[in-house]
């Protein structure tokens, strides 16, 4: 019964991550989480296309983070290996402007860029924790990709762990 409920919970999150406009509880959780994460960054532009959080990326943190078997399964079931999707936020969200790739390129004079790319967050441990991959792009040879894990603390999210997986 417990596993069954967990499976339902996962499916709800997956549905919520599709950004299909339905105001589910999971959607609200995702919105709250993303707003919290995005407000901690200075960048004003975010790419509307998500960057995938892959198993290869997760392998980077296997030595530093001891996830329980249940958490690992939880994350693996939700992980998006190859596909990127689109955030359907209207115009702006969390003080950021969401633009597609072509609009971002038009918005800057290369090599001077500055924007974020983020993955869909993955919630695990019964929704009390979330993992996300964030890329910062700030021009030629300026940028990084970071995996972050947060823990929900009442209505806010506390940073538990952060690892740089690439720098430029």
């Amino acid at each position, binding site marked *: 019964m417990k596993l069954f409920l967990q499976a339902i919970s996962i499916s709800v999150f997956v549905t919520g991550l599709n950004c299909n406009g339905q105001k589910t509880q999971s959607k609200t959780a995702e919105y709250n989480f993303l707003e919290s994460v995005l407000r901690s960054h200075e960048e004003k532009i975010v790419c509307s296309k998500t960057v995938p959080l892959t198993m290869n990326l997760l392998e980077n943190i296997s030595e530093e983070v001891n996830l329980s078997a249940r958490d690992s399964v939880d994350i693996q079931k939700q992980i998006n290996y190859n596909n990127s999707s689109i955030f359907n936020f209207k115009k702006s969200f969390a003080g950021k402007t969401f633009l597609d790739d072509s609009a971002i390129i038009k918005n800057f004079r290369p090599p001077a860029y500055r924007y974020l790319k983020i993955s869909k967050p993955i919630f695990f441990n019964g929704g009390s924790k979330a993992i996300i991959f964030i890329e910062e792009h700030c021009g030629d*040879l300026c940028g990084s990709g*970071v995996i972050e894990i947060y823990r929900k603390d009442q209505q806010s999210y506390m940073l538990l762990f952060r690892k*740089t997986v690439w720098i430029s």
Partner: protein
Amino acid sequence: MRKFISNSPLATVIIISLITLISSILVNACRKFDHQSKPKIDKAERFLTLPPNVHPAVKRVVEKIRRVNQRTNFLNDFISRQGFARWDKAIVTGTKSVSIAGRVNAEDYCLLIPLVMEDQEQVHGAIGCKVTADSVFFTLLDGSQPESYNADSTVKGLNGRELSLTLMYLDSLVFGHNFFHIKDSAAFAGLGKNVKYARPDSISLIPSSTSRMVIYQVWICYTVWVPPHHGQVVGCDPGDPNCNDYDEEVHCDYYELGGDNGYEIDDDNPPPPSDGDSGGGGGGSDLCRFFPIDGHQCGSGNPPGWTPSYYPNNFFENYANQGYHHFETWALSSEDYEKINNWRLNNIDTSGLDSCRQLILNKLLNNVSGNLLGKILTKIDRANNDPNNIEKFNVKYHIKPLGLVVAETDSFHYNSNTGVFSVSITLDSVIAHTATDIYVAGTILHETIHAYMASLLYRIKNGVTVGQLQAMTYDSLFNEYVDTLVATNEALLNSAFINSQYQHNYMANKLLSIIADAIGLFEGNTISNTRYYWFLAWKGLYQTEPWKQHWPNYPAQPISGAPYTTDDSTRGLKYALTPSRLDSILSSIYNERVANASAYGHPPAPGGCY
């Protein structure tokens, strides 16, 4: 008779003499037999023997020398004074354009061929040539007579110092020497100082495409070391940790290596030399014609006024304590040289790169000034008063599509038991295949520095508490990197967070000049506006404190709120970051990235190389 033999001293002497005589005859007979059994090795033929796979232009040169030698038999004397040609190390450069006079064609070649005395590991001289469709033009760079170049530099086209530097450069190509002891002041005259040591840092040999009179236009940059107490004003302050008893200076020279204008088409009989011509090379009418005629020989056969050398014992007297002064010089101890060489041979995997980008990496690893990458990484350690850890730094280079990212450094792995750090550097294939060579070289430099700084962070953090780390007395520049991290977020110390902007701040504050120098050395320092290298060194440093200070609304344009707009507001930087200069920096980087007509670097040619 028996009694005579046994008792007479005279008889004994006679017998011994006979035995000696017979033995001597036998020995000499054997020697003669041996001598006759070995064919005499003709030095001239040896001189003219080519190794396999040499450039066709080199074959043309040898054919010409062979024909002349058949008539004048000059080679054996020449070899005794100048040595043998190292055809395998010949520099061959194609000319690039057609002259208006139509005498120099696109298929012409310019060559510089080192000459080495038998059994000596030193370049003694060189043959400069221009190979055209109808003839071969020669000149001789005679290292044995630098004083004649000093006395007649206008006619010869170069002085003794420029002669020595060019031969030192060839010596580095043939024997790998890169540091030289000046023994004869005539070999390094003209600086107004008694130079003790010299090192060619970069050379640019530009083949002349406009005249047969000129083979190469030569730009050569070099470092000299001048001991104190020889008249220079600036010496070492007492207790100066940067003092090694030598003043270090960097200079650049330009000269034109002249060809021989005495030849007509396929004319193997040069005009006689003028009175008093005692050899030497260069341009003009009274130079040694290389092919001596009766009673005229080229060169004295004396050794050059310099020898390959190691750094003197007291050169690195305060090496361990120089701190950030290490970034102000390319000098390294022999121990560090050895470690860098081991790293180059054992710790670098280039199998993930295509062959053209491998060439760029190899040029950074095997520059005439040494291993540029290895030197910078070593100096990052040394600046922190750390031992050189480069032999525990494994790096693998790749090339593949990365989207909008120019290059990335990833797959950080530190083995706390062995102390070995492994990392991967990937170049974006789309950009790497379109950008110029200096753009790609700068990218490799930047990313490799990132990778090494990451290794340093992993190494220092291993098994160390926050308190211990904060108590460490590192050089202040290192504090800017690690201590800033600790002070900002102590909790992050134990995670594997590498803040790329902290690393970029470190680069902007301390490494800009050495990165710019390395790009210049890679490129050959042919760009007269040396600021350009400094501009390119800023690539990627757009979120650093100095950049944001001067461009508060980055990346919005136009720049607004810039606090310093005059050229004298350098704020500790080499040049002021005025709004117009910031614009020039970005434009320069962009031009090199897309390899447009304004770029100075070489764009990829068909086939992807440069």
